[in-house]
């Protein structure tokens, strides 16, 4: 007697599962596109507007929390059931060896819109073989954040243009830092940490660790690796560094208490700084960075090879990232544009109270226009980790030459893996 009941039970389960899979949409041609991104990676309002813009598309946008990269990798490793559209951060270059897991956006018509975007940002998503696996979302142009009041007390220039004129190079910036620290009784440090200087100098360069053949170029004279190392060591030896790691509670406290007078950071540091150091509102300014303009961070969109609707996906991406919508995303959640036209929008020039009424957008848009295209290579992060680890021990007293030798040795070991 139990048997019939069991059969009905299983039948019901199967029916529920099947019906759960089918979409209950009214439009039979509607295609569901799954999108993976992280919180504040894309403008939620724009994602909702996709439905109106594309009546045939139902967008299933999923915010992936936690470790986005490893969840994506797990999905890629599983080989199926992944999203159609997926967001990447600046670790996009780590995916170049697996470029065949994504659609070549050039084949879907990306060439037509290429001129609308900042060239260096666009090239970031193109493999050395010329396959475009990811298209730009936002950028992270860098600039010098500095405390106007502290600079003024130390007799340094305070106007952003003057600051840039007098501190156009890292050497000049360090010299000014010495003066600043002396005049303020050594209670304030010029900048936050040694790794930050190293990373930012490399971010201004077009040749860092690898050439496009993925050969290591860190030891050649035109790469920035050694230059960045030497400058970072110099800053440390001049005593200009507070040893506060970026965005830790230590860093927040040092910023809020006025123990750090300046740092070079990307445009997204604005929000972090505002949250970390509310007591210093109105005292910060932004100038073009010493050593030149650079980029740090910024994300991308790609289409996975497993997607059944690459064309539709690309249309949606194109629309989401068009110049107008980039301006909207900037207004809504401060995503700094990658489309050149969007950089000209009036909203980019708005004055900000936290920066004493300065329009920092003028500085950052200018910086964004002047970034040099760079090739990072799939092992950029590994190498950067090795070198900054050694630099940290230099900041705490290790002999720089020993540390450099150790870093190079470890890097070479890493390259053989």
């Amino acid at each position, binding site marked *: 007697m139990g048997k019939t009941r069991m059969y009905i039970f299983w039948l019901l389960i199967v029916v529920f599962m099947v019906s759960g899979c089918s979409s209950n949409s009214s439009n039979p041609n509607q295609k569901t596109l799954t999108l993976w991104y992280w919180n504040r990676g894309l403008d939620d309002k724009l994602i909702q507007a996709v439905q109106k813009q594309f009546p045939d598309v139902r967008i299933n946008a999923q915010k992936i929390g936690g470790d986005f990269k490893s969840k994506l*990798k797990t999905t890629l490793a599983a080989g199926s059931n992944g999203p159609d559209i997926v967001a990447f951060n600046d670790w996009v270059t780590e995916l170049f*060896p697996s470029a065949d897991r994504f659609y070549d956006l050039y084949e879907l018509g990306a060439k037509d819109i290429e001129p609308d975007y900042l060239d260096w940002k666009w090239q970031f998503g193109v493999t050395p073989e010329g396959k475009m696996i990811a298209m730009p979302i936002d950028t992270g142009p860098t600039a010098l954040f500095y405390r106007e009041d502290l600079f003024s007390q130390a007799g340094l220039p305070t106007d952003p243009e003057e600051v840039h004129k007098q501190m156009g190079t890292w050497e000049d910036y360090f010299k000014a830092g010495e003066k600043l620290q002396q005049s303020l009784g050594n209670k304030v440090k010029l900048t936050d940490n040694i790794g930050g200087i190293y990373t930012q100098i490399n971010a201004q360069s077009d040749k860092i660790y690898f050439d496009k053949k993925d050969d290591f170029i860190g030891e050649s004279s035109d790469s920035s690796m050694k230059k960045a190392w030497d400058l970072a060591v110099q800053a440390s030896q001049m005593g200009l560094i507070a*040893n*506060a790691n970026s965005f830790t*509670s230590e860093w927040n*406290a*040092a910023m809020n208490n006025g*123990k750090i007078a300046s740092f070079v950071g990307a445009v997204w540091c604005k929000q972090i700084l505002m949250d970390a150091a509310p007591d210093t509102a109105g005292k910060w300014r932004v100038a073009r960075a010493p050593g030149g303009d650079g980029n740090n961070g910024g994300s991308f969109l790609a289409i996975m090879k497993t997607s059944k609707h690459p064309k539709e996906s690309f249309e949606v991406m194109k629309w989401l990232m068009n110049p107008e919508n980039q301006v909207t995303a900037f207004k809504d959640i401060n995503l700094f544009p990658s489309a050149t036209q969007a950089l000209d929008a009036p909203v980019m020039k708005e004055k900000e109270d936290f920066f004493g009424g300065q329009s920092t957008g003028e500085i950052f848009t200018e910086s964004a226009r002047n970034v040099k295209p760079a090739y990072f290579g799939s092992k950029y992060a590994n190498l950067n*980790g090795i070198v900054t680890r050694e630099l940290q021990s230099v900041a705490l007293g290790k002999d720089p030459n020993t540390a450099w030798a150790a870093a190079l040795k470890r890097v070479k070991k890493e390259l053989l*893996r």
Partner: protein
Amino acid sequence: MGEPLRQPLEPRTPYPAATKRKLSSELWKHRKEYLAISPFYLLFAVFGLFPILFSMYLSFQRWDGIGVMTFNGVNNYRFMLTDPEFWKAVGNTLLIWIYSTIPMLFSALVVAFLLNASFVKFRTFFRIGYFLPNVTSLVAVSIVFSTVFSNNYGLLNYIFTLFGLDPVEWLNHTWGIQLAVSFMVIWRWVGYNAVIYLAGLQSIPTVLYEAAKIDGASGIQSFFRITLPNLRPIILFTVITSTIGGMQIFTEPQVLVGNDGGVNGGGLTIVLYLYREAFINNYFGYGSAVGWGMFVLIALFSLFNWKMVQGKGTM
């Protein structure tokens, strides 16, 4: 102890006659029982056994997590054994284990002893109070501790300056990081081990103490002659579990000082190293090899502890 009592059994058909057919019919006869216990085994096979075997396979492969796997021979293991950072991680883990486990188990014993004493009031309250840290979110704890040990603005340094002492840059020194991590472990696990000890203490028959008293033993004598020997299996249990736990410390240093283990890698434990190599640097095959290296270390270390605590002759 422990020898199962053998009841004289009814004469049965001798086992060697059992064939495959017989086994399957046995299985079929007890199918309901097997079905009832199957969920655990199925889940274990999928989420436990398979990953373990797969990581064994993976440890001989080169794999970035996305691309194709290529056979790598013993290269992963060779790299591990020759990588100074791996040995540094092993050293750090052992040091943190020593800094944390010895004071932790000792204070747990003291706490348990006090909780067991008849003069303590509100015992349930204290038991819950001591156990509470164990169920607190580890990440939250780590964040709180990171503000306690913060270099310039930490609570601890605030107290130091109140007493006219110089602030210490805790997280800029290897020992400072290890101390902070050990402190977190101690704070979290004292109560847990105290509860286990307490159960052990309560299982010691009071007649032993009474007999000792009649024979004129002092309190200290009965602690060392009665309490400790009777607690020995319990102590062994806590030592083994804290060895296994201590070898796997990860969240505390990761939240406190980041994926690199902080300045000079002072907080780089074996699992943090494994995590960094696999999930940050994308060497998943290598990460698996490190996992197996860790397995060997834990096994050896547990064996060593077992011998130590058991003492000679009792094995």
